[in-house]
């Protein structure tokens, strides 16, 4: 089920919330678990069974890891890591492997392809963090199977994050309070996220999609497409996160923030501290630091950055373009580090640093968005003027809302506070304006067809 679908807004959510709020506190976790599985099974029942299997293994392994005996604990950890990473590798990367073998051997293999279970990258990483944290004795294991199920399958953040650490939510799974303040904050955050997705991201797609569909767009079209996509992916993903956080508040959970105005970053390093923060910190704590972090030589640090970013890129999708995207970010981070880190940008006025960073990010987003290497080359050729000015087909379109979304989007990104700050501003007008945006979004939702979140692919 998609947050921006009528079935979610007008059927699942009101019925679930009514059932949840009317339940006595001791029954809220069972209701949440049940609702989460209905939410997930709506997409595919068999993959809901896979989620249940994975969660059960993580729970059992967590108990084993929390026990005594270092060898036994380590064995449990290796078992659960192997199983979860194996599942992720099979469902997410086996197609890429087969395709690569086929193209290298020029022979078609008898393989029908594997369907990617929604959110598997997110719940696998969450499960790994749980087991590793229990192993490190940083957190107690879940007190019950139900707590573990709720933690891994909680529908607000199940399919596209944020990646929640068990330590940050353990106490809330045991006892949480739903008050009027959190309810109104949650409702506003959900409405903001919903509007970001429907009014901004989906309208920006009207500019970006036709450009990326072309083999060789002209200079202006290419740049419009890139600038639109840079905003589209931000509003798409941060909109989803706002909705997840808002739903969390409606249920009494305080989930971690995932974005902190990332395009205001004045360096690539800073960008990764502001963009998809739950993934960045996961990669840092469970990959970069175990690899040695920046404790060794400069060369080893660069190697660790490269490995972390390559794997981080590949986490986003099973395609060589994602590996390339991660590699480019890794290369940029290494360059920044070698050139003196923050001191490199300190010599420049901050707006210039922000603009340079945004330019580099936009160039990198092309790799992220391109369907294959061929279209990637076509886009870069267009962006750097190798395909002429082009026929400017985008300018021929009657797409006023899309152009308005581009303009408003840049104002929101560079000038306005982030959603979590907006809902804290004491004002009568802002909440009413948010309701108006929500109404408009519902109208747009009803009048347009289904459009899934970009991050569902991951």
């Amino acid at each position, binding site marked *: 089920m998609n947050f921006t*679908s009528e079935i979610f807004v007008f059927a699942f959510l*009101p019925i679930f919330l009514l059932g949840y709020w009317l339940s006595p506190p001791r029954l809220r976790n069972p209701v949440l678990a049940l609702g989460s599985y209905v939410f997930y099974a*709506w997409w595919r029942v068999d993959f809901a069974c896979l989620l249940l299997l994975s969660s059960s293994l993580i729970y059992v392994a967590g108990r084993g890891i929390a026990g005594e005996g270092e060898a036994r604990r380590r064995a449990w950890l290796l078992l659960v890591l192997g199983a979860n990473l194996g599942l992720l590798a099979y469902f997410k990367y086996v197609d890429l492997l087969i395709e690569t073998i086929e193209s290298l051997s020029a022979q078609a293999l008898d393989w029908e392809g594997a369907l990617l279970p929604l959110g598997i990258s997110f719940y696998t990483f969450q499960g790994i963090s749980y087991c590793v944290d229990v192993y490190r004795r940083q957190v107690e294991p879940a007190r019950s199977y139900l707590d573990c199920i709720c933690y891994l399958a909680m529908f607000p953040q199940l399919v596209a994050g944020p990646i929640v650490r068990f330590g940050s939510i353990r106490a809330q799974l045991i006892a949480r309070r739903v008050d009027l303040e959190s309810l109104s904050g949650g409702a*506003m955050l959900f409405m903001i996220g919903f509007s970001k997705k429907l009014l901004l991201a989906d309208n920006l797609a*009207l500019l970006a999609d036709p450009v990326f569909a072309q083999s060789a767009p002209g200079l202006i079209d290419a740049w419009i497409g890139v600038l639109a996509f840079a905003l589209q992916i931000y509003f798409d993903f941060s909109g989803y996160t706002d909705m997840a956080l808002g739903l969390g508040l409606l249920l009494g959970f305080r989930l971690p923030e995932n974005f902190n105005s990332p395009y205001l970053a004045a360096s690539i390093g800073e960008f990764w501290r502001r963009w998809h923060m739950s993934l960045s910190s996961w990669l840092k704590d469970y990959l970069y630091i175990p690899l040695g972090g920046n404790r060794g030589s400069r060369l080893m640090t660069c190697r660790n950055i490269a490995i972390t970013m390559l794997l981080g890129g590949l986490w986003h999708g099973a395609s060589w373009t994602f590996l390339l995207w991660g590699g480019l970010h890794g290369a940029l981070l290494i360059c920044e580090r070698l050139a003196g880190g923050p001191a490199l940008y300190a010599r420049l006025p901050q707006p210039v640093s922000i603009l340079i960073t945004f330019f580099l990010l936009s160039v990198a987003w092309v790799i992220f968005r391109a369907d294959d290497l061929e279209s990637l080359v076509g886009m870069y050729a267009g962006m750097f003027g190798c395909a002429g000015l082009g026929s400017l087909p985008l300018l021929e379109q009657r797409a006023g809302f899309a152009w308005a979304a581009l303009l408003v989007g840049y104002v929101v990104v560079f000038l306005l506070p982030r959603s979590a700050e907006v809902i804290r501003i*004491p004002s*009568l007008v802002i909440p009413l304006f948010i309701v108006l945006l929500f109404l408009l979004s519902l109208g747009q939702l009803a*009048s347009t067809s289904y459009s899934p979140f970009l991050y569902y692919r991951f």
Partner: protein
Amino acid sequence: MFARLGKHCALVSFLLLLAAGPMSYLLFDPVKTRASVPAPDFSWEDLRRGEYASDGEEYLRESSSLVRVLRSVYSLPLLRAGLLESPLVRFGSEPWLFYRPGTRVADPAALIRLRSRRLNMFSALKLELEKRGIELVVLLVPDKSRVYADLCYGREGMPRLKAGLYNLILSELRQAGVRVVDPLADFREARRREPAKQLYYPGDTHWTPAGMRVAAADLVQELESGGIPLGGEPGESILADKQLLQRSPDLVDMLGLDPSWLAEYRQAQEGLRMLGVSAGPNSRVGIALAGGSFSERGFAAAIAEACGEPVDDRGVLPGQGPMAGLRETLYLLRQERLRPRLLVWEFVERSYLESKFWLRGPAELGLR
């Protein structure tokens, strides 16, 4: 205090809007009979694969009074103010709507790149049918934006690349040795002769029975001039009659508008059905039709009426692209459940612009 009031108002509004979904189902009669999407049939397999849920979701959405009201309340003022926009629909002279992706060549490079694959596909198809003693005839269906170019493009005119597309298709088909029927000139002539008679629906991408009849007459004329005998079996005259189709105009639907709210599109959709077919169950129908949504509306009946013999339309599969019906026909031929002497392929002009159909070349049809 006002700030708190605002937040609480937002919460109450949010909850009321959420509640409007179930409440509208409980208080108002769901528009189930008007829903364009049928309720899905239950099967455990569909449930497992999530298809039951997704079809059910679509059905619930389309049968919801609330969704329909929201759509129209949102889109209608925008339409009236001339602000409504859509990536799928191009607004022509009122009230004419056109399928936007078909009005221009968005990716000329892909069109050029895939040329050899298209030619290979046409040649392989022709060869496959020849081996079975079947003549292939492609009926090229011109896009509505080509027949009504003046209403679609106005003074700016048809883009140059789009203007050349039709002839490109004709030349490629002929280069592959395929017999092609080109009804464009007759469509234009029919428009000139009777401007009031619509050959395509204003709010729909498809042709009317009148349009079908023009194309069918053209097809028969082409076959007769090519020395292909027609009207053999069953020897009785066949008539086609108009039938009412239970569907709303697709372009109006793409805009998210309820056609019942719009007088200009409140037009009955019609198709044709075959009458007077006296062919017995064992008779060998000599003409087979493969195609999609254009044929689904009774094009088989129009051909039968024009040539005097029945037409087998088991190869008509709407809504699945230009190849699905042809694949089904080839399957029936291989199974020997279909043994025509002539295969008519309804080929819609805009399908040339969709690269996905041509990427695999002959393999798309299961041919080598």
